[in-house]
């Protein structure tokens, strides 16, 4: 379904023409073996705790999601109307797979989970996210995270 040819033509055309940031090279940081990975989720689904301010603009800001968050804690204020939300309404793991990661940590497939996860609002110009992303990188490193899972919506 996320194949462009399966989307409404106007949406497919809009997505195909959306300007993408250009990077001359791709950075590379060597990851540890999975069993030693301390994993954080960085989402662009516009997720946040119910009591946090909703996303209302395109400033590149982010929200902090504590590692002990439960499904009932999170809401979504992504600005786009052009993706399905009914799946997230039924099962938060569809967008924010924290229960699945907890299972992987419990069975030893990964070492541990971060104390904090993060969410941006993906309709933002990526250039606006650069500064906030550097801030999040610093927070992740202090949290001893050595593997980041990025999840779009």
């Amino acid at each position, binding site marked *: *379904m*996320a194949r462009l040819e399966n*989307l*409404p033509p*106007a*949406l497919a055309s*809009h*997505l*195909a023409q959306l300007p*993408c*940031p*250009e*990077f001359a090279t*791709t*950075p*590379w*940081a060597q*990851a*540890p073996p*999975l069993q030693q*990975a301390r994993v954080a989720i960085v989402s*662009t689904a516009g997720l946040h705790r*119910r009591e946090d301010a*909703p996303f*209302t603009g395109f400033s590149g800001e982010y929200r902090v999601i504590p590692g002990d968050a439960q*499904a*009932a804690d999170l*809401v*979504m204020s992504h600005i786009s*109307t*052009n*993706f*399905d*939300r*009914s*799946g*997230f*309404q*039924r099962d938060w*793991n*569809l*967008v924010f797979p924290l*229960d*699945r990661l907890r*299972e992987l940590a419990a069975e030893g497939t*990964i070492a541990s989970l971060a104390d904090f996860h993060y969410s941006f609002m*993906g309709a933002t110009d*990526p250039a606006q*996210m*650069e500064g906030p992303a*550097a801030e*999040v*990188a610093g927070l992740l490193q202090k949290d001893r995270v*050595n*593997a*980041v*899972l*990025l*999840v779009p*919506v």
Partner: protein
Amino acid sequence: MGGLSHYLERSGLPTTQISLIRLHTEKIRPPRALWVPFELGRPLGAPGDPALQRRVLLAALALLAAPAGPVLKDFPEEAPTAAAEPGVWACPISLPQAEEDLDQAGRLRQAFVREVAQMSTWYQEALQQRGRTTYGVSGLGPLAVADFLASLLEGRAPDNPRPGLSLPGLAKLASEDLKAFYLEAVTAQPGGETDSARLTDWFFGQTVAGRVLLRLRGVLAASDDPEARMVGKLLMVPVSQAARKARG
């Protein structure tokens, strides 16, 4: 999404990402990406399918073992499709009366409030079933959301119940809460529909709430306020429903 991969990896953090739009990922060339053939809004595949979600997750995490990049791999499975019956799905509760009735003064608001109250039973059922709700980004209760949106539609600038937000910004959040309220409610019914396209068609094609948002789209799009115009033109009704007339 791919831009964030660059920014984080540049800081020394290994990243792996799920990709929903392959074309964007091909252009941005993040270090590690797993393209999935799922619909927008469902990056882990399907709700209530932990086995599929786990396979997606493990496939994305497996890319961390790659010796060099960029790596872009395709997830080999499609999402399961619901065995939907052909034709237009209809919610088995009594929704609005004849459309011409709704054009009379006050009728749309009355029908809207009645419909919200009617959906409330199923919304409460959804809350019980799931132990959670995604409703609540506007900070207003369902009837207050209905009142707020109806007032905007009637051209009366309502008092702003959220002074920290602009009126158009609150209208956007209220519209998302309204959709969440209806979709959570209707999917809690026995045999509740799961196909997202059919749910969207139902909301915009068969409910008074959908008609309110279609009408409000036009009102906001014609506003003098640039933010209201943007909300009306882009952020109230999905592209898949754009051709629908603001009838009734």
